[in-house]
C-alpha cells in the first residue's frame, strides 16, 4: 500500500516515538537486518498471509496425500463403473466421485498437488540455479562472458517461453523429467537476465564503490556485496515462477506432452482427459482447473507480497 505523503518529508520521521531510530543508542539488541525486516513486513501483510496459507495447504496436502486417502493414486480398479457416458459422482466411498478412467477423483486431486509441487519446485529450482549461475557469471565477470551469455539469453528469449518448453519437451519425449527440464530451461533466461540486470544496477551503487575504495577483492565484492543485494528480485521471481511453472506443466500436459500415463494424477492431464466428459461430469475438468488456478494464486500472492516486503521503497 502506498502511503500518500509528500516526498522526503514524511511526517512520521519526526513524531513517531516508536520509530526504530530512537532506540538506537539505548537497547543492546540484535539489529534488524533487511531480511528480518522484510520478514517482519511480510508477516504483517494480509496478502502474504493468504498466499502463504494457500501455499502451505498445497504443500501439506502434497506431502501427506497418502494419509488423506485410503486409495492408491492412479488405481483404475473401478474402471468397470465408468462408461463413456456416465461417470459416477460423489459417494461415501468416493468423496468426489470417480474420474473417467475409474480412479478415485479425490485421491487423484490430492496426488495432483504432489505432482504439481514436484514439477514446479524441481523445474523452478533448475531454472533458478542455472539462470543464477549464468547471471552471476555475466553480471560479475562482464566482458565477453557477459556478451556471450546475454546473446544466448537473447536467443532463448526470442522464442516465447511456452513454445520453448513445448519444443524442449518434444525433444526429450513424454516423461516427467522432460517436462521438468523443459520448463526449467525455459526459465533460465528469465533468471539470468534478471540477476544480471540487478547486479549491474547494484554495481553502480555507492557501496560497491566504497568496497572497491576499501580494497576489497573483486570476487568478494561480487559475492559478498553485489549478489546478496541482487537476489531479492530473483527470489520474488522464483516464487512467481512457481506459479507459472505449475500452469505451464498443466499446459504441456494439455498439449499432450506431459506425463504419459493417463491415470497419473496430474491436474493438467486430468483437465484434458475430462474434456470429453464435460457434459457427463463437469467436475472432472472444473476441479483440477480451479486447483491449478488457486495454487498459482497462492504463489503469486506470496511473490507479490515478498516483492513488496523486499522493495526498499516500502521500507520505513
Amino acid at each position, binding site marked *: 500500500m502506498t502511503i500518500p505523503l509528500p516526498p522526503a518529508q514524511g511526517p512520521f520521521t519526526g513524531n513517531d516515538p516508536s520509530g526504530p531510530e530512537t532506540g538506537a543508542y539505548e537497547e543492546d539488541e540484535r539489529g534488524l537486518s533487511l531480511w528480518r525486516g522484510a520478514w517482519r513486513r511480510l508477516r504483517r501483510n494480509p496478502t502474504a498471509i493468504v498466499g502463504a496459507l494457500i501455499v502451505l495447504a498445497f504443500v501439506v496436502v502434497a506431502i501427506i496425500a497418502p494419509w488423506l486417502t485410503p486409495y492408491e493414486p492412479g488405481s*483404475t*480398479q473401478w*474402471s*468397470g463403473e*465408468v*462408461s*463413456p*457416458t456416465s461417470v459416477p459422482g460423489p459417494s461415501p466411498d468416493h468423496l468426489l466421485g470417480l474420474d*473417467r*478412467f*475409474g480412479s478415485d477423483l479425490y485421491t487423484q486431486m490430492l496426488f495432483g498437488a504432489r505432482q504439481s509441487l514436484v514439477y514446479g519446485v524441481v523445474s523452478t529450482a533448475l531454472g533458478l540455479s542455472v539462470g543464477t549461475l549464468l547471471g552471476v557469471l555475466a553480471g560479475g565477470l562482464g566482458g565477453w562472458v557477459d556478451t556471450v551469455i546475454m546473446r544466448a539469453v537473447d536467443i532463448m528469449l526470442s522464442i516465447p517461453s511456452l513454445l520453448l518448453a513445448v519444443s524442449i519437451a518434444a525433444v526429450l*519425449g*513424454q516423461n516427467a523429467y522432460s517436462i521438468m527440464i523443459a520448463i526449467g530451461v525455459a526459465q533460465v533466461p528469465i533468471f539470468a537476465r534478471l540477476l544480471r540486470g540487478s547486479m549491474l544496477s547494484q554495481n553502480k551503487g555507492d557501496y560497491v564503490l566504497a568496497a572497491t575504495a576499501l580494497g576489497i577483492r573483486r570476487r568478494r565484492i561480487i559475492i559478498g556485496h553485489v549478489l546478496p543485494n541482487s537476489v531479492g528480485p530473483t527470489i520474488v521471481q522464483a516464487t512467481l515462477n512457481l506459479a507459472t511453472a505449475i500452469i505451464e506443466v498443466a499446459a504441456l500436459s494439455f498439449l*499432450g*506432452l506431459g506425463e*504419459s*500415463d*493417463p*491415470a497419473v494424477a496430474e491436474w493438467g492431464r486430468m483437465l484434458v*482427459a475430462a*474434456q*470429453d*466428459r*464435460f*457434459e*457427463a461430469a463437469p467436475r472432472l475438468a472444473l476441479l483440477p482447473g480451479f486447483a491449478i488456478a488457486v495454487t498459482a494464486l497462492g504463489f503469486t500472492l506470496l511473490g507479490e507480497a515478498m516483492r513488496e516486503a523486499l522493495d526498499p521503497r516500502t521500507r520505513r
Partner: protein
Amino acid sequence: MATTAVLAGAALLLSSCAESERGNGGEEGTEGEAGGGTFVFAGAAEPELLDPAFASDGETFRVARQIFEGLVGTEPGTADPAPLLAKEWTVSEDGLTYDFTLETGVKFHDGTDFNAEAVCFNFDRWYNFPEGVQSDDFAYYYGKLFRGFAEGPKAGEGIYESCTTDGDDKVQIQLNSPFAGFVAALSLPALSMQSPTALQEYQDDAASNVNTTDYSTKHPTGTGPFKFESWERGNQVTLSRNDDYWGEVAKVDTVRVVAIEDAKARATAVQQGEVDGADLIGPADLQPLEDAGMQIMAREPFTVLYLGMNQKTKPLNDIKVRQAIAHAIDKEEVAAASLPEGSEIAINFMPQSVTGWTDDVTTYDYDPEKAKRLLQEAGADGTTLEFNYPTDVSRPYMPSPADTFNVLRSQLEAVGLKIKPVADVWSPDYLDKVTGSADHGLHLLGWTGDYNDSDNFVGVFFGTQTDEFGFDNKELFDKLAQARGIPTVEEQTPLYEEINQDVAEFVPAVPIAHPAPSLAFGPDVTGYQTSPVNDEVWSSVTVGD
C-alpha cells in the same frame, strides 16, 4: 449385432425420408428439383492433395469420392463391388483379362468426354508414373495393388499389361498375373477416373512435389456429382453441384469439407450447428449428441482393433503368456468402456464380411483364472510389461485409445501382470516406436479396410516379419503369399479361413473388436448413406427443412 442392424435400418430410413422431403428447398431456394443449400461436413484432418492417385489418406478420399468416380463402386451399405462408370464387366478364366462396358454420355467436369480412351489414359498414366512419385508417400495404392511400374526400381514386377479400347464404350484391361481383388480394388478412389484434358493441362507427374501442382490443388476434374470449387488451405474445401451429372443430380448446391482435429470439438461443432455432419465421433459424445437431438449413425464395422504383442520381448515370446493375455481380456467390457455402440467383438483379424472370416477359430474366452494359471505355468506372473498406446488421436478403429488402454490395463493387472504405460504422440512417435522399432511390448493398433480384400487385413499384418510383432513364422508367411496369388475369391476362401485359424492358434495379437466408426448429423440432415469402406457420396444428402 442387433444394434448394427437397427442403425443400418435407420440409415436406410433416412435416405427414404430424403426422397419424400426432397424439393422443400434450402435457404437459397435454388431452382430445379434439388433441395439446395450447403452441406458442411467435418473430418478429422484436411486432405493432403486433391489428386487421389497420389493419396492414401481417408480425408483426401472423402473429398475425392465427391468429385471422382471409378469404374467400379460399391453396393450401398456394403463393401461389395458394384457397377459405376462401368456398367458391367467380365473376367477371363485365367483371371488375366477384364472387359468393361462403360456408361455412355458421361462427361468430365471440364466437358471432356468420358470414354474408353479416357480409361486407358488413366491406366497408362498410373503405369507410367515417374520414379519420383512411385514411393509410398504418393502412388501408394497403385504401387501396392499393381506391384510395379513401367520404369524404376520395380520395373517389370508390375501385373498390369495393357489397356485396349474397343469403341467408345468398351475397354479391355490385360494383367500379366492373376489378381483376385482387381475389381474390388477398382472401387478405391486412388484408381478413379480423371479427366485426361485437365491432367494434361494442369498435372505434372514429374513435379518435385505433386502435392502442390495446379491439378492437385486447384483443378481436380472428375465425373462425380460435385465439382471442385476452391480449397482454402487449412480451412475448407468447397465443392459445388455438378448439374450435368450423368446420374441423379445432387440435392445440395454446395458442399464444404472442413477439418476439426479434436474429436470432442467435432461433436461440439455438430451440436452447435456449426457443421451439418462430422465423422469419427468419440464414444463419449454419442449419448450427449443424441440427447441434444442430433442424429447418430454408425458405419457397419470394416475395421479391426487388436492388442499387439512383440515377440522380440520376453515373456511375450512365450505362447502361454500370449494365451494368458488373450484370456485376461474381457472384450465386451473394453467395447462398452471405450468403443462406440455398434462395435462388434472380434475373433478374427478381419470383419465378418471379408472373405475368409470364420467362426471356427480358437476363441480365448474371458477367463481370468485360466489366465493366471497360464501365467504361472509360464513363470510370468507379476512380470512388468510395457504397454504402448498413442495419445491425441482418434482412428476409426480406435476412437479413444487412452480409455481402451485404461480398461485393458485394469484387466491385465487383475490377472497379476504389472503394466508400465508408455504413451506417445500418434505420428510419428508412436508409429515409429511400434512399427519401426523393437522397442515396445504390448501395443494398441488396428486397421480400417480399404476395400473388400482379405489380404488387405491379414496379409498386411502377418505377411512378413515385422518390427511390430517381432516373430518369424515362415509357414504363415508362405500361406499368405500363396493366398494372394490365387486368381479367384472362391478359391481363396478356404485358404484364408485356414490362415485365420492358424493365426488364432499362434496368438501374435489379440483381436479385440471391430469398432463401428460413428458419424453425427444435425437434425435437419437427411439422406446420408453410410458405407463400411467410407464410400459415401453425398448426392442424396439434403439439409434444412
